[in-house]
């Protein structure tokens, strides 16, 4: 039984995407894909140490560094989803009125409303830091809760406090414990969240199953793979959008 | 005796009515009927494994009979105002003095009263120099002496003693025997087992003789030693029995 190990992020695993597409790939090629879902930083570290054959994450700058250092062969765009800002339905900071993501963040900070940050250097956390700097704010204070946890745990926290939070739409749609939270801001192009896939460099780690790994990459960027991604829905909503035309 | 007199006995006699004791289908004691009368010195005799210790534990209320009943004069199953010295005394993992203090504290005596009683008891039993020693490191005889002292300090109306001098040297044995006679003179009831025939003769007013879990003689000591009716008892006194 052939298999490869893919180090990926919790957001893709938690959303159920892999459960949807991997059986199709296996049916086609006979290759089993074992997905280890970790924080983005940890997933890249796993690749760097040669413990995965493929990494599949969303943190563009870090991915490019990974390739530049020679740990990855090449980065391929696969798909994107987007981030949304969620918050208490009564929207104490008036985020709904903001006309951009940065303005939304400024409103939260301005009102001193609670904000739950993942604080784990994940792709989502990196995107959040980008939004704060775009808003010209250095978030600190009692209202800013750095949970140091995965997306799900952070949303669990945000639902309880309640607090605003930045989350990817995939996790949000499949998240069951929303409490008073709902989407209060979305649609700004800066909330675009691209996923890349990279084969771990067999020159660094000779045991990497380059052939099967490349087969997976080839398939996922192929027509069939892209369609598989597009056909994945949660509650009737498409979560991920193919980025290969 | 420096020991205060106990209040007049009210819990005696203790009556055993058709008492039996089975464990796991084995009958260890059967059909024992017996009254422990107030103020008497009863010596329980019998070969090893005859059931003497079981009988004392039944009387003392530590095990419950599986047939018949043990009942005190006041109707209780397990009366206070009794104490027992075990064949193999169990000492607490504390000092000698703390072992003496423990049952007194259980009875709710004040710290002061306890200190006085402990001091008196240590002195009475020659345990003064050992007061601060960990009780479990004492020699065999010292442990037995401590167990005796502890029982004495509880001022019981009935005192059960299971081979209480088996580890004692001859002079200690003599002193303990004298003390037991003294208690008896104060009205304390004594139930004792011993394999020391001389001791039995010296102490017994009544004798109960057990054989394989049955009570086959219960008579005044003078009669018993003059010539027991049961052949087993006769053989026992002659040292004839073989296991």
């Amino acid at each position: 039984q052939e298999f490869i190990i893919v180090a990926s992020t919790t957001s893709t695993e938690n959303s159920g995407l892999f459960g949807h597409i991997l059986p199709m790939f296996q049916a086609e090629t006979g290759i089993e894909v074992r997905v280890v879902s970790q924080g983005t930083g940890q997933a890249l570290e796993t690749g760097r140490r040669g413990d995965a054959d493929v990494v599949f994450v969303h943190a563009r700058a870090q991915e490019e560094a990974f390739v530049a250092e020679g740990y990855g062969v090449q980065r391929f765009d696969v798909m994107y989803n987007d981030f949304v800002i969620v918050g208490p339905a009564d929207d104490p900071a008036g985020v709904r009125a903001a006309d951009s993501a940065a303005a939304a963040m400024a409103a939260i900070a301005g009102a001193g409303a609670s904000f739950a940050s993942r604080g784990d250097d994940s792709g989502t956390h990196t995107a959040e830091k980008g939004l704060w700097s775009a808003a010209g704010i250095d978030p600190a204070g009692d209202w800013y809760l750095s949970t140091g946890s995965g997306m799900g745990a952070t949303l669990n926290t945000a639902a309880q406090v309640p607090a605003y939070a930045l989350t990817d739409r995939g996790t949000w749609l499949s998240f069951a414990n929303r409490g008073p939270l709902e989407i209060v801001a979305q649609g700004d192009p800066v909330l675009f969240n691209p996923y890349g896939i990279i084969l771990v460099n067999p020159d660094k780690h000779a045991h990497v199953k380059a052939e099967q790994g490349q087969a997976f990459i080839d398939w996922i960027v192929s027509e069939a793979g892209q369609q598989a991604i597009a056909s994945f829905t949660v509650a009737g909503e498409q979560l991920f959008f193919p980025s290969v035309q | 005796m420096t020991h205060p007199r106990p209040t007049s006995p009210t819990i005696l006699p203790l009556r055993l009515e058709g008492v039996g004791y089975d464990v796991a289908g084995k009958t260890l004691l059967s059909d024992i009927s017996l009254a422990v009368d107030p103020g008497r010195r009863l010596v329980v005799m019998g070969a090893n494994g005859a059931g003497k210790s079981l009988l004392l534990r039944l009387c003392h209320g530590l095990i419950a009979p599986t047939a018949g009943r043990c009942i005190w004069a006041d109707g209780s199953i397990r009366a206070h105002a009794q104490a027992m010295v075990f064949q193999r005394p169990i000492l607490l993992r504390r000092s000698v003095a703390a072992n003496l203090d423990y049952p007194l504290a259980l009875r709710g005596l004040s710290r002061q009263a306890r200190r006085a009683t402990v001091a008196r008891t240590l002195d009475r039993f020659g345990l003064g120099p050992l007061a601060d020693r960990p009780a479990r490191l004492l020699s065999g005889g010292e442990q037995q002496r401590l167990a005796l002292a502890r029982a004495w300090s509880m001022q019981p109306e009935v005192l059960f003693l299971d081979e209480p001098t088996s580890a004692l040297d001859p002079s200690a044995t003599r002193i303990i025997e004298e003390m037991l006679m003294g208690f008896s003179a104060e009205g304390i009831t004594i139930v004792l087992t011993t394999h020391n025939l001389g001791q039995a003769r010296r102490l017994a007013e009544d004798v109960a003789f057990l054989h394989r879990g049955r009570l086959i003689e219960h008579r005044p000591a003078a009669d018993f030693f003059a010539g027991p009716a049961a052949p087993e008892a006769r053989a026992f006194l002659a040292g004839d029995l073989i296991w």
Partner: protein
Amino acid sequence: MAADAALMQIIGLSLRVTLTAVLVACAIGLPLGAALALARFPGRGAVIVVFNALMGLPPVVAGLVVYLMLSRSGPLGDLALLFTPEAMILAQTVLILPIVVSLTRSVVEDIWAEYREQLQSLGASRLRAVPTLLWDGRVSLLTGVLAGFGRASAEVGAVLIVGGNIAGHTRTMTTAITLETSRGNLGLAVALGIILLALTLTLNAVAWGAGQWARGRLG
């Protein structure tokens, strides 16, 4: 994390939460375990089995249960305890109580087998025997308490859920280690683990010293 002050704060919180949980678990678990060793009642075996099994209570489940209790929508929501150190203490207490109870029961049962008749003869009720047995078994009980302490100090699943791992507020050594791991900072994670173990080691050395001293005095 780099800042020493932050590290100190995290260490302080870890110690406070764990030691309080151990203290509470001992205050309840030692007498309860001893009572369970002594008591005879129908269903005693079942209670013992349940406590034994609860030694395997998954921290996440313990955390979730406490979370659902303390949640704003839960029965105790009004106490506003969620995401506070108090909630973490509660979750850890739930987690280690079965360990303290089961190990205490086991130790006390052995001593009770030896002491039962003598204590009853001396006039101790079963209730009154409990402190006696705990005291006489103190050296052997220490290992069980240390097992509970170890479990609490190493635990992350429950404190993460009810504490939220909020920086500067409910972040402990173990949740910090988990965070650094998910950031891929494996070296830092291991370093934090070593600091935690060093603390644990120190506490254990003190406990052992105290135990030896007690044993010496007790013979």
